[in-house]
């Protein structure tokens, strides 16, 4: 007998950002939408994020970056997830990211980027349409 599968999301902030208010708001929104959110917060290295994503068997990783280092950090996370065999985890990003960078981010494997001002409902709707429980 199979239960309805719950989606598991990891929310993390790679790099040196000083605050995580936005990430926490998104985390709470996901919880209120019925997701299980593993929140690991500030100052995470790509390696810590990837290990957590694998140990927690999440369906989605949400990365937040405010300091401008998103190109490097987000790329690293996707790269390491693939190297470790977790090829089917969806990765999305948010934070202070110039629009011009979004196409490049998508090229390296970030499925979608949600900029400041995006209604939270939109993020949830996108997630429900694009992320399914793995297996």
């Amino acid at each position, binding site marked *: 007998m199979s239960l309805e599968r*719950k989606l598991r999301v990891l929310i993390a902030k790679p790099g040196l950002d000083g605050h995580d208010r936005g990430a926490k708001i998104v985390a*709470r929104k996901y919880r209120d939408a019925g997701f299980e*959110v593993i929140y*690991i917060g500030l100052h995470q*290295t790509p390696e810590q994020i990837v290990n*957590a994503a*694998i*140990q927690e068997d999440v369906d989605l990783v949400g990365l937040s970056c405010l300091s401008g280092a998103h190109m490097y950090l987000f790329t690293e996370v996707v790269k390491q997830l693939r190297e470790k065999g977790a090829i089917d985890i969806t990765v999305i990003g948010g934070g202070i990211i110039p629009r011009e960078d979004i196409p490049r981010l998508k090229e390296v494997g970030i499925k979608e980027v949600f900029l400041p001002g995006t209604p939270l409902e939109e993020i949830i709707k996108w997630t429900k349409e694009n992320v399914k429980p793995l297996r």
Partner: protein
Amino acid sequence: MNLVNKILKGDVLAAARLIRGIEDEVSDAVEELESVYLHTGRAYIVGVTGAPGVGKSTLLGSLINIFRKKNMTVGVVALDPTSPFTGGAILGDRVRMQSYGVDKDVFIRSLAARGWKGGLSKATVNTIHVMDAMGKDIIFVEAVGSGQGEVDIARVADTSIIILIPGMGDEIQMMKAGILEVADIFVINKADREGADNLRTGLEVMLEMKTHLPDEWKPGIILTEAVSDIGTEQLVEEILRHREFLASSGELEKRRRERAKLELTMAVESSLKNYIERMDKDYLEKLVDDLVHRKTNPRSAASKIINSSGDR
């Protein structure tokens, strides 16, 4: 799936996937678990409970550090409540243990309670089994204590630790049923706060009032300041002392036998529940009709179902 062999070799990806399958009750996973169970029984299991905010995760972080220095591999099952309104959960215990995020010998898994009362669930027990089969030397189970929660954790743990902090009206907490009986070790965290000594004295008095047979384990009370790593070495020593006591007194075997019996009962209940969901609907409705019209009673009707379940 055939993840069992990978898990026995310590493959994290495989273990994590199986745990997820178990949580979601995917039938492949439930079957894999049958093989996994045969490879369990080696790990030492420590339950850690306490009200939100007492410092469970922070303290666990320190304990992991000390056990790693002793070259022991560690598993952590961190439980958090599921919202009864939304079905979602924030699993935030891992935050405080992330420095072990890249230690390949530490496996931390967060579980949402998903409607199980008392902080414990089938998924919890089975996650412990997976980590055990992976070869983890010591597995911590961390859960919010809610009175009921402490008692449940004690049934799956070899050593049960309850964490209190000064100033939370804990004398009343302590008097609640089950808490005094189940704790093997009491920890007073944030011991730098006012009231720590009073709390310790209060605990000591309550423990004195409880009759202790000469061979029985007398729970220790350890004062800690987890954020500063104070008292944590003593806590580890106390855990090891308890383990030694259980092993040499035969208690360990007794407790593990009880645990096996409990799991068996849980599996029977679960199996019957599943059977009712899947049984011939017409037959079920007929039995309900008979009850409504008082042609039979619930117990006899239940007997019929149980007997027919054997014919599957």
